[in-house]
């Protein structure tokens, strides 16, 4: 459009904005003729708009390209056609259903990365989309992006995570001053992220603003130390015990419970030791006394008034048991954890038992977990067992699991893939359920990734006996087990 016309159009626009009641309509440029003589203002404006919009449309021109780069050449090779087809199948019409498809994609990505191959171009958008939702797939997807994928990812804000495919995501360079300006929830998230790889830097951030943060922020940030917690965190936690805000102190205590080598654990041990004593000639009995009113140091360590109803002294015993090293118990009995637990159990020392369980869970103590697992039901105990006894113990647990929740907890505690014995036990337990639908649907991923492929015949036999919904889900699991070995084959 020429400047003259552009000028006219902007005058016309101004008149249209304000309305013809209050504005004159600019006369039509000469090239457009005189217009209708004697037309009312509003008619003249609409006539002009009709002419002008047609003129403007017809005047559209191409423009200079904005600077933009084409993708560089890929360096990795393309997988065999069969492998490409298989990925297309899994992404677009997964025979294993939407829940398991990402697992299969994961296998595909691993196979491709092992051979140093890239994803086919036309499936890049779908892979990026999937891994945007399923973060676990991101490292695998990064491996197969190559130049084309990285270029594509850079064009979509949702895919930024993949854009610098070569750059490691776990950068530990955080500017404390910048971090300090973030909103609290983002500061917490950043600390949690850092703690997985560099606990000291994460703690350093928390310390850097400690004296100026509000009580709420201190509590939130301190809680973030639960990720990657270690003995080096003790000084800050110890300092938090003296915090003027109760909520901060209450965050510090359970974290210190998880550190049995801390000074606070030693103090708790000093308080606990006089209360427990092995009795009898063979030291077969353990007497457990309740603690008396704590002194100021005891209150500081967490022996406060309980919020629950019940015995106050029982509560203190529980806190002592949760905070002291577990060795206090084995030293008192001179026996192993299993025997010690039985001795404690014979006493009416419920609070002590709760405290011990807390300590075992907080510290992830495998030996004690093995001692307790047959005696106490707790969904997290099983996962603490050493790998070599985990499956056999879990197999036993399955036979005694009373509710679906318990079965689910047991199955979820055993990392995939499972050995043949546990696989068979799981199937046997599920087959015994009168209505296995809920269990099947909630455990679909665990079953598919966990079950030993050799159990497929058993799985299919069971599948035949099931109602339609459950039948379908089990069919998908079986299909999954069949497809997993096919994926590396397809790359040949």
């Amino acid at each position, binding site marked *: 459009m020429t400047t003259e016309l552009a000028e006219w159009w902007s005058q*016309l*626009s101004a008149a*249209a*904005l*304000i*309305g*013809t*009641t*209050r*504005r004159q309509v600019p006369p039509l440029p000469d090239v457009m003729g005189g217009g209708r003589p004697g037309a009312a*203002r*509003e*008619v003249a*404006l*609409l*006539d002009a*708009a*009709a*002419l*002008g*919009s*047609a003129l*403007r*449309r*017809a005047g*559209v*021109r*191409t*423009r*200079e*390209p*904005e600077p*933009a*780069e*084409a*993708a560089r050449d890929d360096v990795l090779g393309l997988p065999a056609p069969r492998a490409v*087809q298989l990925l*297309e*199948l899994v992404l*677009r*019409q*997964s*025979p294993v*259903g939407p829940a398991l498809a990402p697992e299969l994609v994961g296998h595909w990505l691993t196979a491709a990365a092992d051979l140093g191959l890239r994803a086919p*171009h*036309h*499936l*890049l*958008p779908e892979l990026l989309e999937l891994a945007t939702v399923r973060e676990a797939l991101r490292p695998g997807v990064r491996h197969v992006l190559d130049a*084309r*994928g990285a*270029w*594509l990812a*850079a*064009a*979509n*804000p949702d895919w930024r995570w993949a854009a610098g495919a070569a750059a490691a995501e776990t950068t530990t360079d955080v500017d404390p001053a910048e971090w300090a300006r973030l909103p609290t929830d983002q500061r917490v998230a950043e600390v949690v992220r850092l703690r997985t790889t560099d606990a000291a830097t994460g703690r350093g951030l928390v310390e850097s603003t400690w004296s100026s943060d509000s009580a709420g922020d201190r509590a939130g940030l301190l809680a973030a130390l639960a990720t990657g917690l270690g003995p080096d965190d003790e000084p800050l936690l110890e300092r938090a015990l003296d915090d003027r805000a109760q909520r901060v102190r209450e965050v510090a205590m359970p974290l210190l419970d998880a550190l049995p080598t801390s000074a606070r654990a030693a103090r708790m041990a000093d308080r606990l030791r006089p209360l427990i004593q092995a009795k009898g000639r063979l030291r077969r009995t353990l007497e457990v006394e309740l603690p008396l009113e704590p002194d100021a140091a005891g209150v500081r360590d967490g022996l406060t008034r309980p919020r629950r109803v019940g015995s106050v002294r029982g509560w203190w015993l529980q806190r002592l048991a949760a905070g002291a090293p577990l060795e206090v118990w084995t030293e008192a009995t001179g026996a192993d954890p299993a025997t010690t637990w039985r001795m404690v159990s014979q006493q009416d020392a419920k609070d002590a038992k709760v405290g011990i369980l807390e300590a075992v869970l907080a510290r992830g103590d495998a030996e004690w977990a093995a001692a307790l697992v047959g005696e106490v039901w707790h969904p997290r105990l099983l996962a603490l067992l050493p790998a070599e006894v985990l499956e056999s113990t879990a197999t036993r647990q399955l036979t005694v699991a009373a509710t679906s929740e318990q079965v689910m907890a047991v199955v979820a505690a055993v990392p995939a893939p499972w050995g043949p014995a546990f696989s068979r036990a799981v199937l046997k337990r599920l087959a015994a359920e009168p209505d296995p639908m809920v269990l099947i649907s909630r455990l679909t991923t665990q079953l598919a990734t966990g079950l030993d492929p050799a159990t497929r015949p058993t799985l299919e036999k069971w599948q035949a006996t099931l109602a339609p919904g459950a039948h*379908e889900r089990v*069919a998908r699991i079986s*299909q999954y087990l069949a497809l997993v070995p096919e994926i590396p084959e397809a790359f040949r």
Partner: protein
Amino acid sequence: MPRWNLAAVEKAAPDASSLTAARRLAAPGPWSDTGSTETLVWGKCQGSGRTPYQVSIDLSGPAYRCSCPSRKFPCKHALALLLLWVQGNGSVADAERPADFAGEWAAQRAEKAARPDRAATPADPEARAKRQAERLALMTAGMAEFGLWLTDLVRGGTVQARRQPWGWWDTAAARLVDAQLPALAERVRTAGSEVNRRADWADHLLAELGRWWSAVQAWQRWDQLDDRTRADLRAYVGWAQATDDVRAGETVTDAWLVLGAHRSDDGRLLQQRTWLRGETSGQVVCLLDFAAGGAPLPLSHLAGSVLEATLALYPGSRPRRALVVGEPSVRSEPVPLPEGGTLEDGLADLASAWVDNPWGSRVPVVLSDAALLPVDGVRAQVVDAAGAAASLLTDTMPWTALARTGGRPALVVGELERSGFRVLSIGADDGLVAV
């Protein structure tokens, strides 16, 4: 016949839930008596009933038949069978002869296609003329009222119009609907939401007011308009042409290359535009399909395939709207890519289309050696062989096209509008591919 791929089957699905249901069925388990020939795919699917459903698909249509009671079209069984077939792993084996149920159906279809169309019952011409005159009077009154509404609007100014609640626009639109001017009504509703959504709302609204006003003015001269402009105006205000009239009008028989298709969904109405180019005539036409109220769109023809068909052309200016007369057959041999031009050619074509039809919106454009390039993370542009650029319309970011081309020159088919370019398909090694 070009072998279907997964994307083609997905496009054929009437909606997402059908596809999901079909995926579940696309395993060999429930299927028996499956097979395929060059043009037919068939199989029996065990459903909840005792007798399995018989599914037949004529790939040349494509056309579907299934003995299930589903009102979806194609149903999940047909989709599942296609999914199974495109896997190409032998679950649906090639066969010499179709199964009886599929063969019989195909024969019936062939017979029907060979028969001339049902004789159109000659409507009473007098009654029809009377109805037409009544409708015209109603529309004329509606147009006049709309003209008054427009003058009121510009008297008060567009700033004031922008402050109006949604109901103000909706009321004006409802009056247009009552006056049987539905497409114009839709434009008013859209403008009512655009004024609050667009940064350039003032400019956009003024241009839109100009187009509405030109329709009002043209309507006043209805008797002096030529047939073509009348047809353009009819299309703009939403006065549909009866398909029987269209069939009885101008027809062109040719081999039509499917250039590409665009589907849009504004929440109320699903729309599908399919662009076809005649091999002999070189003419480019548009098939338009609509579906509302949750009904599925008919499936789109595969980009890159060639339909040998007779098309009836709607009256009006280029690019003409068309409908398919009878059953098209799909040509089996592979097709070379169409010739392309530059953006400048496309704009010239767009400008000349506007000379004929001021209410037109877009022309289809084939660009040779054009690069699709992302710009700054949210936008993208197309740069043609001459180094000229246009923005891509942001309603559909063509991720697949970007991934396939990587910013390298390729044949690109799309729609050119005033505000930019929309990619529909690209040239690949094996012909056009929808993106």
